[in-house]
């Protein structure tokens, strides 16, 4: 009986493996049934890899209006895995026509020659976006590699009710934040003001941007890598101190344990970005109506800034045979008022388009009791500053995870972890042969 079950298990596993192997999709083979009726003989077919929720519904309204260009959405898991999958597909010669590219991954895509320069077709879209976000898709060069979709200015989220309970004021500077963390720890050692996660390099990059870091820049025909610059070391030293003192948490974000802490009020605040309401709604449902939003604490209160955590763009694969059609769709998706409204409403993204941001009116459900969420977001977003990302962010981010994980574990110097990021990044770039300014 045992053996039979064993072979049954093996058979199921084999079948699953075969199915997975067979479905490892050839791009562009699935035709939308709606396309054939009433359309010209041969509509252009585009495939689009994205993880924006409900994108298939948003695309339906494009497909209905454009029988000559039919887009098929292929839903992705998102994050680093999605980027790896796209790079692998591009290397294998069958990428999708369009791909959702996070800003920090775009340079890697460009360096791998996986996405097209769409300057000729996308140039007119420039006016729809702010200077900062547009520079993320040009990488500070003359080319245009994608059309911005959403952006993630960082903001400070806190439990209003518990701040009142413990008599805390919303910190406006990082010094105040540290003092608040200490005061809270003294009042109740079982709760924490916040945490530093070793698994979220994007969050750390945003905090470094706020402080004025410029991890990469282009100097003529060479890259300048300055991850261990003064602002970044200042940010790292600050968080390292708080972790060492034990007045904030040191566990990773997005674990069941962390969800519980947010949900039951063991963690009183979260330094996050404009997309946080979605996360809070699903991971901390009990906190609905208890959270409020404020600008990040500042290094210099008279010059408020914030950084970006997350945000992505729509890029066109270098080998796509229908580049013009693809750019037309990407431009529509990210700039057309109707499409952007759908993106914000159905896809829950904070649009990068300036007009799109201004048009947001309905507050997120989670903050329904505190009207004006989007107004606050727009005010904070106006103070955001980013930096050009380099061609091997994945190496840098991976080095962040390992170095900060170890630093937290050993209670050692965070500055050394930043230097490990810098060294890993430079070593990898040298190995590949990139020109680097010493």
């Amino acid at each position, binding site marked *: 009986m045992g053996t039979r079950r064993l072979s049954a298990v093996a058979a199921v596993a084999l079948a699953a493996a075969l199915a997975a192997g067979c479905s490892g999709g050839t791009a562009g083979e699935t035709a939308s049934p709606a396309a054939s009726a009433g359309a010209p003989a041969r509509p252009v077919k585009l495939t689009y890899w994205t993880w924006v929720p409900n994108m298939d519904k948003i695309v339906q309204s494009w497909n209905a209006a454009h029988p000559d260009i039919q887009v098929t959405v292929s839903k992705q898991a998102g994050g680093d895995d999605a980027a790896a999958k796209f790079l692998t597909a591009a290397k294998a010669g069958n990428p999708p026509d369009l791909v959702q590219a996070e800003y920090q991954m775009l340079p890697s895509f460009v360096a791998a020659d996986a996405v097209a*320069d769409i300057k000729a077709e996308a140039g007119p879209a420039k006016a729809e976006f702010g200077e900062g976000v547009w520079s993320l898709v040009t990488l500070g060069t003359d080319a245009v590699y994608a059309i911005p979709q959403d952006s993630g200015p960082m903001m400070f989220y806190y439990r209003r009710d518990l701040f009142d309970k413990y008599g805390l004021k919303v910190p406006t500077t990082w010094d105040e934040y540290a003092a608040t963390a200490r005061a809270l720890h003294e009042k109740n050692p079982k709760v924490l003001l916040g945490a530093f996660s070793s698994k979220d390099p994007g969050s750390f990059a945003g905090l470094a941007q706020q402080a004025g870091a410029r991890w990469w820049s282009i100097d003529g025909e060479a890259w300048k890598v300055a991850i261990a610059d003064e602002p970044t070391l200042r940010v790292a030293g600050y968080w390292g101190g708080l972790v060492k003192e034990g007045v904030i948490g040191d566990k990773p974000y997005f674990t069941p344990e962390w969800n519980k802490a947010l949900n039951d009020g063991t963690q009183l605040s979260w330094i996050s970005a404009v997309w946080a309401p979605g996360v809070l709604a699903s991971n901390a449902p009990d906190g609905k109506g208890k959270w409020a939003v404020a600008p990040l604490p500042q290094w210099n209160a008279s010059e408020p800034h914030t950084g970006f955590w997350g945000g992505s763009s729509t890029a066109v694969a270098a080998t796509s045979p229908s580049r013009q059609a693809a750019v037309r769709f990407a431009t529509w998706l990210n700039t057309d008022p109707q499409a952007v409204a759908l993106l914000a409403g159905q896809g829950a993204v904070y649009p990068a388009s300036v007009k799109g941001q201004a048009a947001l009116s309905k507050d997120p459900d989670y903050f329904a009791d505190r009207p004006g969420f989007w107004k606050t977001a727009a005010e904070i977003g106006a103070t955001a500053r980013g930096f050009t990302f380099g061609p091997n962010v994945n190496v840098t981010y991976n080095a962040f995870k390992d170095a900060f994980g170890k630093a937290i574990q050993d209670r050692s110097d965070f500055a050394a972890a930043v230097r490990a990021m810098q060294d890993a990044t430079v070593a990898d770039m040298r190995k590949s042969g990139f020109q680097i300014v010493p």
Partner: protein
Amino acid sequence: MSPHRPAGARTRRAGAAPYLFLAPAMVLFALFTALPIGYTAYLSLRRTKVSGLGLGKGARKEVFVGLANYATALGDGELWAGWLRVLGYGALVLVVMLGLALLFALLLDTLHVRFARFSRAAIFLPYAVPGVAASLLWGFLYLPGVSPVNDALSALGARVDLLGAGTVTFSMANVAVWGGVGFNMLVLYTTLRAVPREYYEAARIDGASETQIALRIKVPIVTPAIILTTVFSIIATVQVFTEPMTLRPLTNTISTTWSPLMKVYRDAFVTGDLYSAAATAVVIAAISVVLSFGFLRVVRDRAFGEGR
């Protein structure tokens, strides 16, 4: 060639049919095993070379670099640190898992049939749980904030972080043992059931106790099966990946290069360096071949009777 084979013509005629029957297997083997291995070896000798900023068309090309990737892989302290971690983990898993498997097999062999059937199924069941699911399940049980295990421990006054630096290896080994005992037990148990009952009868007549029968008769008889399961387990340990990979997001203590195979994954799919990953993969394959055959060589005579 031909002088050694006087009956060459006849052999060839007889030889056509076997090859025909073998063909499907050979084609599949060539396509899905030999070819990928060959491609891996080919990739391991190459690297991308970038010029200037590395942006735009033609800025990146693939070049032949000889054994440079191997030199880097072998010179990387992190890979050897990974081997050390896996060695500690593997020693733990091997001893505990196979020890328990043998103990359970021996116990089941002496138990009453109905009870034995239930226990056998119960012990085997975890093997049917996929590794990722098992790791997630255990991960939730380990996480200090949500773990009932932790609550129980702290009620007893013990404050242990089951995912801490000193404990994480044990926690991971526990997942592997939980999942693996059943399968190994089944292999040993099946071997035991094939032993003619007369042996035991004879031993009892000679006045042997149950323990003596177990240690002096049953264990020597199942030794070849123990060796087989050990080789399988060594290979599985060298390739440990699922457990650390699934538990990694939950804790600061597991790095992205915790085990050698995780380093291959990181190089290939996170940092996008297929070439280094290929070289490291070849090194891992070589080491697991050496370990498995080395073990077989050491125990061969003992396991398979008189040897040659």
